[in-house]
C-alpha cells in the first residue's frame, strides 16, 4: 500500500497536482467535478461529511438513481456534506499510484480519508474488487480491524447488503432496505457522537439500535466441518435478525427537486423519476422483486409536479419513468398521455426503462423512441410456457407471438429477445424452445415485411441464471461453466442463419457472480487476494481475469463450486439467515416447491395475498395510485 503520510500537501497544492493529473487522462470530464447542480459546501460550517462512492466508472455511477437521491437528501441538510467519488479508470489509477496521491472526491478534491463516512453502493457483486481497490487508492486499510478511530466509517447499502457476508470484514455497517429515512438517522447519531466525543465503538452501539442497520462485527459465525454455517450468534445485544427499512408512505418519501447535470455523456443521461417502488409479480428468480416489496405507487399528480420542478432545474431533454416494472403503474397510460402532451412540443421525450410484453403497445413504444423505430427489446425469459410457469412469469407463447407481430406490423424490423439459461428444471426442450420461438418470430417478421425481408433481424440474448439470496431459488444449484458452455453451444447451433443473431454472457463471469451472491465471510480473503493479484472491473469483459481469480481461490483453499454448484437444504443455516427483507421462509420454500410443479402464484395486487410475509412483518400495505390493476 502506498504510504500517503510521507507526502503532505496543502489543500491548494493538492488541488494543483490533481488538476495536472486530470488533464492527462483519457476522459478528464469524469473527474473534474463542477457539474451543474453539484453541491460544494464549506466544510467549516458543517459537522458530518460523507463521500458517496460508486465502485464503477463515472458514466455508470452518476446514472445511479439511489446515489443521486442520497446526494441531495444529505446535502439538503445544512449540517451535512455529501460529496462523490467513482472508481478511477485504469489511466488515472496508474497516475495516482505513481505519484502517491490518494483518490479524491469530485467536489472538493479531498482524499477519502478526510471524510467521516464512506458510503458504498452495492449494486452488483462484480464490483466488489473495485471497492477494495478504491480503499487501497485512498490509503485506508481494507480490514475494519486495522482501521483506527480516525479512519472513516465504511458503510454499504443497496441490494448487496442483503447478503454482504463476503464484505463483512471490510465494512463497519450495512444498511438494509430503503435509505431515505435511515440515512438521516445514522447521520444524526454521527453528529451526536462527534459532539460528545464518542469512540467508534460507542457510536456503533448507538447505531445498532437503528432499525435496518447491520453491524457485521457483532455477529459470530461458526462453520461446520463441511463448510456450511453452523450458527450465527449475535453479540452484545445485537438483534438476532436485522430487518430491512421500508418507506410506508411512498408519496411522502423524499424526491430531490434537482439532479446533477453532467458535462460528459453518461449511460442514463436523463431525468429519472421513480414512479413506483417494489414489484409483486413474484418472478421467482428476481431478487429485486423479492427485496423491495410491497408495491407502492406514487400519485399521478406528485409525479407530474416533480417532473416539472426537476426539468426546470436541469433542462433535460428526456424523462424516464423508472421502477422495476413501470407499465404496472395503475395510472401509467394517463400519466404518459399527460406528460407527452405537455412536453413533446418542447422536444422532451418521455420513456420507460423497459416494457413488459403483455403491456406492449406500438403507440407507446413509438412515442418512447421519439418516432424512430430503433430495435425493440422483449424479455420472454424462458423458451417454453412450462419453464415460464416455473419462474412464475405469467406470459404465454401466444402473447409473445402477438406482441412481436404487432411490433413488426407497426414497422419495427429489429427485435431483441432476452432469455436466461440454467433456470431450475430446464431441459434441452426448453433451450430448443428458445430457438423455435426466435425462428417463429423471425418468420412472422419476414412475412410482414415481405419486401424488406433481408432487413428483419431477431437477436437472441442470453444470460446465465444466477440464484440469489432471499429468492425462492436461493437453495438451487447454479449451472457450471461447462454446462453453460454446452447450453450456449446448443443455442448457437440452432440460431445459425440469416436474420438471426445470438449474444451471450461470459460463462465464467456468471460463476464469479454466483459465488459472491450466495457467499459467506470466508470469501473476504479471496477478495483480498484477487485484488492483490490485480483483479478489478470484473464486470468488464476486457478486465475480467478468471485465471487470477482461480489463483486467489486456490490460495485460500476455497472451491468456488461449493457456493454455486451445491443444492442447499431448506433447514441449512444460510450465511444471510440473520438478514431479512421481511419474507417468510415458508413462503420462499412453498414458492420453490410450486416452481418444481410449474405452478403459477398470483400477484398480490389482485387483492389475493399469497402471504410473502412482508406486509405483516414490516407493518406496511401495498398501495396503488387508484387505477385498475393490470395483470
Amino acid at each position, binding site marked *: 500500500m502506498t504510504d500517503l503520510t510521507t507526502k503532505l500537501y496543502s489543500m491548494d497544492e493538492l488541488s494543483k497536482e490533481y488538476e495536472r493529473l*486530470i488533464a492527462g487522462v483519457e*476522459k478528464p470530464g469524469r473527474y473534474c467535478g463542477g457539474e451543474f447542480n453539484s453541491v460544494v459546501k464549506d466544510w467549516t460550517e458543517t459537522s458530518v461529511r460523507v463521500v458517496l462512492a460508486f465502485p464503477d466508472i463515472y458514466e455508470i455511477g452518476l446514472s445511479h438513481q439511489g446515489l443521486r437521491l442520497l446526494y441531495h437528501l444529505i446535502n439538503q441538510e445544512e449540517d451535512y456534506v455529501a460529496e462523490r467519488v467513482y472508481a478511477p479508470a485504469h489511466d488515472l489509477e496508474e497516475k495516482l499510484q505513481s505519484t502517491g496521491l490518494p483518490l479524491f472526491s469530485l467536489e472538493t478534491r479531498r482524499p477519502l480519508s478526510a471524510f467521516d463516512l464512506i458510503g458504498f453502493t452495492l449494486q452488483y457483486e462484480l464490483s466488489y474488487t473495485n471497492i477494495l481497490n478504491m480503499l487501497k487508492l485512498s490509503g485506508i486499510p481494507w480490514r475494519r480491524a486495522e482501521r483506527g478511530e480516525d479512519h472513516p466509517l465504511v458503510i454499504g447499502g443497496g441490494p448487496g447488503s442483503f447478503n454482504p457476508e463476503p464484505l463483512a470484514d471490510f465494512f463497519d455497517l450495512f444498511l438494509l432496505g430503503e435509505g431515505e429515512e435511515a440515512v438521516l438517522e445514522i447521520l444524526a447519531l454521527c453528529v451526536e457522537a462527534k459532539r460528545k466525543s464518542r469512540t467508534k465503538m460507542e457510536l456503533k452501539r448507538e447505531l445498532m439500535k437503528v432499525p435496518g442497520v447491520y453491524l457485521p462485527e457483532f455477529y459470530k459465525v461458526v462453520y461446520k466441518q463441511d463448510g456450511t454455517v453452523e450458527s450465527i450468534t449475535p453479540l452484545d445485544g445485537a438483534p438476532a435478525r436485522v430487518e430491512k427499512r421500508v418507506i410506508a408512505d411512498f408519496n411522502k418519501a423524499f424526491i430531490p427537486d434537482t439532479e446533477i447535470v453532467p458535462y460528459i455523456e453518461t449511460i442514463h443521461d436523463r431525468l429519472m423519476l421513480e414512479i413506483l417502488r417494489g414489484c409483486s409479480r413474484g418472478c421467482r428468480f428476481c431478487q429485486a422483486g423479492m427485496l423491495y416489496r410491497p408495491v407502492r405507487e406514487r400519485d399521478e399528480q406528485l409525479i407530474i409536479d416533480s417532473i416539472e420542478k426537476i*426539468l426546470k432545474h*436541469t*433542462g433535460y*431533454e428526456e424523462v424516464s419513468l423508472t421502477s422495476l416494472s413501470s407499465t404496472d403503474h395503475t395510472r401509467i397510460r394517463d400519466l404518459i398521455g399527460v406528460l407527452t402532451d405537455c412536453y413533446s412540443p418542447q*422536444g422532451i421525450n418521455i420513456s420507460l426503462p423497459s416494457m413488459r410484453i403483455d403491456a406492449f403497445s406500438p403507440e407507446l413504444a413509438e412515442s418512447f423512441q421519439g*418516432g424512430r423505430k430503433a430495435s425493440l427489446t422483449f424479455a420472454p425469459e424462458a423458451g417454453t410456457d412450462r419453464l415460464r410457469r416455473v419462474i412464475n412469469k405469467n406470459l404465454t407463447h401466444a402473447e409473445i407471438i402477438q406482441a412481436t407481430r404487432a411490433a413488426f406490423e407497426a414497422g419495427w424490423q429489429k427485435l431483441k429477445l432476452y432469455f436466461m439459461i440454467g433456470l431450475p428444471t430446464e431441459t434441452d426442450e426448453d433451450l430448443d424452445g428458445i430457438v423455435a420461438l426466435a425462428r417463429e418470430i423471425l418468420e412472422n417478421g419476414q412475412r410482414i415485411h415481405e419486401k424488406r425481408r433481408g432487413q428483419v433481424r431477431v437477436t437472441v440474448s442470453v444470460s446465465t441464471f444466477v440464484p440469489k439470496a432471499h429468492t425462492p431459488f436461493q437453495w438451487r444449484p447454479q449451472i457450471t461453466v461447462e454446462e453453460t458452455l454446452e447450453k450456449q453451444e446448443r443455442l448457437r447451433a440452432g440460431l445459425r442463419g440469416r436474420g438471426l443473431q445470438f449474444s451471450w454472457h461470459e460463462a465464467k463471469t456468471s460463476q464469479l457472480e454466483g459465488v459472491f451472491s450466495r457467499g459467506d465471510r470466508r470469501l473476504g480473503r479471496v477478495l483480498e487476494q484477487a485484488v492483490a493479484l490485480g483483479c478489478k472491473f470484473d464486470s468488464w469483459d476486457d478486465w475480467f481475469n478468471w485465471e487470477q481469480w482461480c489463483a486467489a481461490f486456490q490460495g485460500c483453499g476455497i472451491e468456488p463450486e461449493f457456493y454455486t454448484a451445491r443444492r442447499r437444504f431448506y433447514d441449512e443455516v444460510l450465511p444471510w439467515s440473520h438478514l431479512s427483507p421481511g419474507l417468510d421462509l415458508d413462503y420462499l420454500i412453498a414458492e420453490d416447491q410450486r416452481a418444481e410443479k410449474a405452478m403459477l402464484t398470483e400477484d398480490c395486487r389482485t387483492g389475493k395475498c399469497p402471504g410473502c410475509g412482508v406486509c405483516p412483518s414490516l407493518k406496511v400495505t401495498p398501495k396503488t395510485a387508484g387505477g385498475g390493476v393490470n395483470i
Partner: protein
Amino acid sequence: MCYQISGPARFISHLDIIRTLGRALRRAGLSIAYSQGFHPLPRLSLGPPLPLGIESTAEYADLVFTEAYPGEEIKSRLNTSLPLGLEVTEVKAVKEKVRSLTSAINQLDYEYLIKIPISKGSAGDEDSLTKCLQELWGREELLATKMKKGVEKVVDIRALWKGYHLSNVKEGLYRLKLEVEYGPAGTIRPEDLLPFLPSACTVERIRRVGAWIVRGDHKKTPLGILGT
C-alpha cells in the same frame, strides 16, 4: 453570441457543449427554435471545435429563438443557467440569416503561456525561444504528424501559419500568440506546434483567444461583422 470556456468546462467535447448549451437554454426558459422532424433538436450551431483541455475566450455560437429577446437579456438569463466554466460575454440579436460560423471564420488565435527555467548566466535559454520561432517562421515547410481517423499522417502546416507575437510576461515566463488559418485547407491545432519548441520550455497553458473573419484587409470578429 460569444462565450468563454474555462476550468472544468474545458474538458467538455464539442458535442457535449452543444448538449450542455441546449440544457442551459431550457433552464433559462429561453424559447429556442427547434428543427423540424420527429426528433427536434434546438437550432444552435457552434464555431470551430475547440480541442479538449484548452480554454477559450473566443467561442462563438449562433442561436435561433422563437421570441425576440434583447441581447442583454439572453446574456444574463443564460449566464445564471450555465455550469461552471461557461460564460456568455456578448450577445448580438439580429433579424437576418447569417452565414454559418464554421464557414465564415477563417482565422483562429491561440495564446501559449510558456515557462523557461532561468539558470544563472545562461540567458541563452530565453533567447532560444525567440530564435527558435524566428527559425520556424523562416522555414518553407513545417511537417507535423496528425492523427486522422486513427492513422498517422504527416502534413505541412507552414502555409496555415499566419503570424505570431512573443512577449515577456515576467522573468522566465513568455506569452506567445499564434495566428493560424481555419478553413477548407485545414488548420493548425495548438498541440501541433509543441514538438518544435525548445525542450527547456514548458507550456503552462494554452488558450484560444480569437476567432476572426478576414476579408482582404478587413478583420472582424463574428459579432463585429454583424450590422455592417
